[in-house]
C-alpha cells in the first residue's frame, strides 16, 4: 500500500510534530516558524481530503496504532479491541475538514495580527497548533479515554491562548473562569469513562456500544457525559464561560475556538448516537438536546442584542447558533427509532444541523476575524467608540457584510441554506420549535444591523480618522472564509450531497459504526 494508508494519523501527527519542533525552528527565523505552522495545517487539510475520498469509496476508515496492520482492529483470535484506534466515518471527516480549515485560516491571520513586540510568539504558535491537534484528535478518535486526553489538550492550549493578552485583566479572568468550568467538565467525562470501563472492561466506543445493556450505571454515565459535553459546547444555561472566553481571546484564537467547541459538540453527538443510540431512551436524549437548543438560541440572541462589546456580542451569537445545531440534530435523535419519520424529516433536520456546524465555523470565524481587524486598528472592542470605518477598511467591510448576511440567514449565503433545512424539517416535527428558530434569526439580523451601523456607517469620528486597511495576511485569512461562505451558499447541493448528508446518515447508523470495528456479526 502507498503512504496514503497513513493519512489518518498524519492529520494529527503533522501539526503535533511541528508544534514540538517550533522551539527549535524559532531559533532560525520567525518566517520559518510561521510558514511551518501554516504548512502543517494545510497538510492536515489535504490529508483530511484524502481520507474523505477514501471514505466515499469504501466506508469508514479504521487506523489501529501499533498493530501489525492498521486495518485489523481486533487481535487475531479475540473478539475485543485492545489498541487505540482512529475511527473516521463521514461525520468525523466532515468535522475535521471544517476544523482544520478554520485552524489554517487562524494561523494565516495570526501572521500579522499578533505582533512580534507582544512577545512569546513561538509559544503562541505552538499552542495554536496544539489546540488544533486536540480538536482534530477529538474528532477522529474511536477510543473513549483518548477522547478525554485530546479534550484536555484542546482545553489547556486554549486556556493559555485566551490569556495571551495578559495586560488586559479581563482576559486572565476569562481564561481562569473557562479553566475552572472546563476542568470540572473534563473530570466528569473521565468519571463517566471510568464507569463504563468498570462495566465493560473496554475503552473502545464501538465495543462499548455493542455490549451496552442499560442499567443505573450506564444512565449515570450517560448524563455525566451529556451534560459535561453540552457545557463544553456552550449550551445555555452553562454558557457563561463562552461569552467571557470568546470575547477576550485574540481574534485568530477565537475563530478556531469556535471549532474547538464544536469538537465537543461532535463528542456529544457521537456519545448520544453511536455509543448509546437507540438502546438508551432516545426520546429523552433528543428532547434534552431540543430544550438545550431552544434555550441557547433564545437566551443567546437576547443577550447579544444589548451588548456593546463587539466580540462579546458575537460570542453570544455563537451560543445562539449552537442552539440551531442542537435543535436540528436533537430532532433527528428524537425520531431515531421511528424509520418513517426519520426518513421523511429526521435526516433532513440532522443534515441541516450538521451543515450548520460547518457554516457556523466559517461565518462566525469570519466575523470574529473582522472584529479582530477592527481591534487591530482601533485597539478597542467598544462599539460606542467606533464609527465610519466603511470608508477606511473596504475589505473588512465587505467581509463583515458577507459574514453578517450569512449568520442572519439572508438568501444567497450559506447560513440561509442550513437554516431553511432546519426550519422546514423541524416544522414537521413540531411547528412551535420552527417559529422560535425564525424569531431568533430575525433578532440575529437586528443585532448585526446594530453592529454594522455603529462600527462601519456614520460619520468619521476623531478616533477613526487615520485608520488604514489591515495587513495582507489578515485580508487573505478573512478572504478564504468569505469565499467559502459564498461558495457554500451558491452550491449547497454539493455540500449536502457529499459532506453533510453522508455525515447525517453515518451518525444515525449505529450498527455501521460498530461493525466497522467489531465486524458484522452482532
Amino acid at each position, binding site marked *: 500500500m502507498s503512504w496514503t494508508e*497513513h493519512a489518518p494519523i498524519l492529520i494529527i501527527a503533522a501539526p503535533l510534530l511541528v508544534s514540538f519542533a*517550533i522551539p527549535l525552528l524559532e531559533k532560525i527565523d520567525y518566517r520559518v516558524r510561521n510558514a511551518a505552522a501554516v504548512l502543517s495545517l494545510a497538510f492536515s487539510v489535504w490529508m483530511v481530503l484524502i481520507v474523505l475520498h477514501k471514505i466515499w469509496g469504501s466506508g469508514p476508515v479504521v487506523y489501529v*496504532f501499533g498493530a*501489525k496492520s492498521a486495518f485489523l482492529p481486533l487481535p487475531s483470535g479475540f473478539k475485543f479491541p485492545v489498541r487505540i484506534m482512529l475511527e473516521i466515518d463521514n461525520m468525523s471527516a466532515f468535522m475535521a475538514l471544517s476544523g482544520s480549515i478554520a485552524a489554517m485560516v487562524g494561523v494565516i491571520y495570526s501572521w500579522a495580527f499578533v505582533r512580534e513586540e507582544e512577545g512569546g510568539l513561538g509559544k503562541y504558535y505552538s499552542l495554536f497548533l496544539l489546540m488544533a491537534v486536540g480538536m482534530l484528535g477529538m474528532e477522529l478518535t474511536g477510543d473513549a479515554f483518548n477522547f478525554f486526553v485530546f479534550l484536555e489538550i484542546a482545553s489547556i492550549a486554549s486556556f493559555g491562548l485566551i490569556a495571551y493578552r495578559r495586560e488586559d*485583566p479581563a482576559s486572565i479572568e476569562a481564561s481562569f473562569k473557562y479553566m475552572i468550568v472546563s476542568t470540572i467538565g473534563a473530570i466528569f467525562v473521565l468519571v463517566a469513562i471510568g464507569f463504563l470501563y468498570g462495566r465493560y472492561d473496554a475503552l473502545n466506543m464501538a465495543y462499548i456500544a455493542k455490549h451496552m445493556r442499560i442499567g443505573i450505571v450506564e444512565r449515570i454515565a450517560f448524563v455525566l457525559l451529556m451534560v459535561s459535553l453540552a457545557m463544553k459546547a456552550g449550551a445555555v444555561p452553562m454558557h457563561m464561560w463562552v461569552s467571557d472566553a470568546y470575547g477576550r481571546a485574540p481574534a485568530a484564537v477565537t475563530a478556531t475556538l469556535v471549532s474547538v467547541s464544536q469538537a465537543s459538540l461532535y463528542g456529544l453527538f457521537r456519545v448520544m448516537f453511536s455509543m448509546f443510540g437507540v438502546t438508551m431512551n432516545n426520546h429523552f436524549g433528543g428532547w434534552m438536546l431540543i430544550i438545550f437548543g431552544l434555550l441557547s438560541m433564545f437566551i443567546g440572541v437576547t443577550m447579544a442584542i444589548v451588548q456593546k462589546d463587539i466580540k462579546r456580542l458575537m460570542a453570544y451569537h455563537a451560543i445562539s447558533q449552537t442552539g440551531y445545531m442542537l435543535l436540528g440534530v436533537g430532532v433527528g435523535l428524537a425520531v431515531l427509532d421511528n424509520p418513517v419519520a426519520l426518513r421523511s424529516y429526521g435526516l433532513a433536520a440532522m443534515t441541516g444541523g450538521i451543515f450548520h456546524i460547518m457554516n457556523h465555523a466559517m461565518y462566525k470565524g469570519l466575523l470574529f476575524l473582522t472584529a479582530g481587524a477592527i481591534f487591530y486598528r482601533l485597539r478597542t472592542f467598544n462599539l460606542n467608540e467606533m464609527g465610519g470605518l466603511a470608508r477606511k477598511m473596504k475589505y473588512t467591510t465587505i467581509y463583515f457584510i458577507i459574514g453578517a448576511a450569512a449568520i442572519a440567514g439572508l438568501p444567497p449565503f450559506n447560513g440561509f441554506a442550513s437554516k431553511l433545512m432546519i426550519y422546514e424539517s423541524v416544522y414537521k416535527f413540531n411547528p412551535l420549535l420552527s417559529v422560535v428558530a425564525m424569531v431568533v434569526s430575525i433578532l440575529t439580523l437586528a443585532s448585526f444591523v446594530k453592529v454594522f451601523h455603529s462600527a462601519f456607517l456614520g460619520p468619521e469620528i476623531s478616533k477613526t480618522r487615520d485608520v488604514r486597511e489591515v495587513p495582507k495576511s489578515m485580508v487573505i485569512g478573512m478572504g478564504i472564509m468569505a469565499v467559502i461562505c459564498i461558495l457554500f451558499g451558491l452550491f449547497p447541493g454539493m455540500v449536502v450531497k457529499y459532506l453533510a448528508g453522508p455525515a447525517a446518515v453515518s451518525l444515525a447508523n449505529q450498527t455501521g459504526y460498530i461493525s466497522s470495528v467489531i465486524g458484522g456479526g452482532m
Partner: protein
Amino acid sequence: MKPMSKIVRTVAASIGWFVFVFGIYVIVHGHLTPGGGFQGGAVMATGVALLIVAYGGWGAERCVGKERLPVFESAGLLTFIILAFGGACLGITFFFNFLANKGGLFGDKLPLGINPGIFNSAGVIPLMNMGVGMEVLAGISLILFAMFYGTKRVREGRCLVDNEEKEEDV
C-alpha cells in the same frame, strides 16, 4: 529568593546527585520495575526544586542551565514522536514497536512468565521512556523556574507593559 545557609547548600549538593541518579535509574528500568519516563522525570525535577530552594534561582539556574531546558524538552518530545513515526516509516503502523524481539538494540527475547528481567529487551519502549523522561525533567523544571521568576517579575511589575488599570464601567 536568597541562597540558604551553608549547611543546607552542602546537604542539598550532596543529596541532589542521589536524586538525579535515582531518577535516571527509574527511567532506564521503566520496562522492568515500577516506574518509567514520567515518574523518573518527576523524581529528577524534585532535585531541581531542591536546588532552587537551597541555592536560590540564580544558583540553580547555573547548575541546571536554564537556556538549554526548552531545547532539551523539544528534543525529548521529538525523540518520542519520531520513534512513534518509525513504525509508520517502515510501512507498518504508527507506534509499532519495531525493535522488539528483533535482536540488536533492546531487542532480546524475554522468557515468558516470572523472570528476573533482561535489561536489553522491550524494543523502543526504553528509548521512549528516555525521551519522555527528558521532556518531563525539562518541562517541570521550566514550570518551576517560570513560576519562581514569574512571581518575582510580577511583583516587581516587569511582566506587564501597560500598568495602569483601566476601570471600565460595565
